[in-house]
């Protein structure tokens, strides 16, 4: 260590190394933050509400799906319920990190849990597996705050950019959200199961789209996931 910046010297080292380890992920996170900020106002959210979602919810997939549901005219209780279902995978993250967080205080566990997004989890579990049982909670905090800072900044920049566009629909911005979803979905389409999930979810939403409160979307999500799960289990008898 010949050169350390003043920030590095003033911070506990595990925190700084967690913060730094997450910097390369900013490249992947920033475009989605920009889009969340850009699109919030196009589905009727104020700038403050768009920013609050990123600051208090801090969950990319759930925020995107909420924007999609708002654009589709879904009721608020349905959006919260769908957020819950989309975020159920976080239970897995918590379960797999819990053994490494025994040393943290009750409040520490709550704070770290708040930052437990997809990217944070990926880095945290890799760190746990490297350090063989003695990972520092401060490392998790560094990772979490790094991703959080980028998510907040990129949302704010997206909001500012969106403010420069007077007529979003004329530029095709009403299609930006479906296009973002396509970018998220296509890399997942490997093998039979995700195609089955997509086909069944799509068919159900077209048939049940007219149900009140946009309940059809939730039914489509549940039916699609069940189809993917079934396709994964099913083996053709040869």
């Amino acid at each position, binding site marked *: 260590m010949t050169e350390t910046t003043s920030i590095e010297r003033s911070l506990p080292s595990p925190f700084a190394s967690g913060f730094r380890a997450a910097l390369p992920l900013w490249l992947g996170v920033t*475009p*989605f933050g920009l*889009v969340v900020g850009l699109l919030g106002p196009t589905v009727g959210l104020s700038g403050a509400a768009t920013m609050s979602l990123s600051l*208090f919810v801090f969950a990319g997939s759930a925020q995107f799906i*909420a924007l*999609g549901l708002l654009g589709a005219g879904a009721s*608020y209780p349905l*959006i*919260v319920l769908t957020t*819950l279902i*989309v*975020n*159920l*995978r976080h*239970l*897995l*993250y*918590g*379960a797999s*990190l*819990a053994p490494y*967080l*025994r040393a943290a205080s009750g409040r520490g566990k709550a704070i770290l*849990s*708040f930052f*437990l997004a997809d990217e944070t989890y990926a880095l945290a579990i890799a760190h746990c597996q490297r350090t063989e049982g003695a990972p520092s909670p401060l490392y998790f905090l560094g990772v979490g705050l790094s991703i959080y800072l980028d998510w907040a900044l990129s949302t704010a920049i997206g909001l500012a950019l969106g403010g420069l566009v007077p007529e979003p629909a004329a530029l*095709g911005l009403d*299609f*930006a*959200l*479906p*296009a*973002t*979803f*396509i*970018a*998220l*979905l*296509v890399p*997942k*389409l490997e093998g039979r199961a995700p195609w089955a*999930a997509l*086909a*069944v*979810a*799509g068919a159900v*939403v*077209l048939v049940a*789209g*007219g149900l009140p409160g946009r309940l059809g979307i939730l039914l*489509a*999500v*549940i*039916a*699609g*996931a*069940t*189809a*993917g*799960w079934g396709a994964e289990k099913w083996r053709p008898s040869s």
Partner: protein
Amino acid sequence: MATFLLILGMAAVTFLTRYLFVALLGRWRLPAALERWLGHIPTAAFGAIIVEGTLAPQGRVRLDPANPYLWGALAAGLVAWRTENVLLTMAAGMGALWLARVVLGG
């Protein structure tokens, strides 16, 4: 006020799913079948919103080639498949939609 409740509700359920098993100290595990089912939720959710936005854009099912959203989705899907780049995918989808609207007059 209602929007405040929406944000509060989303924040609460998100925090709850993150915190629950951390607080339970990893003593309980989810059944493997449930884990696999949960893994397919994002695909189904994104798929439902894409299909609806593309094939039933204004709440009416349109499977004909004069539907400009169909062309936007095809272009976006192709670019996503080739590049896996979110900004290029958005540009391709929005560009193709704009072009299809000009050509199809819709």
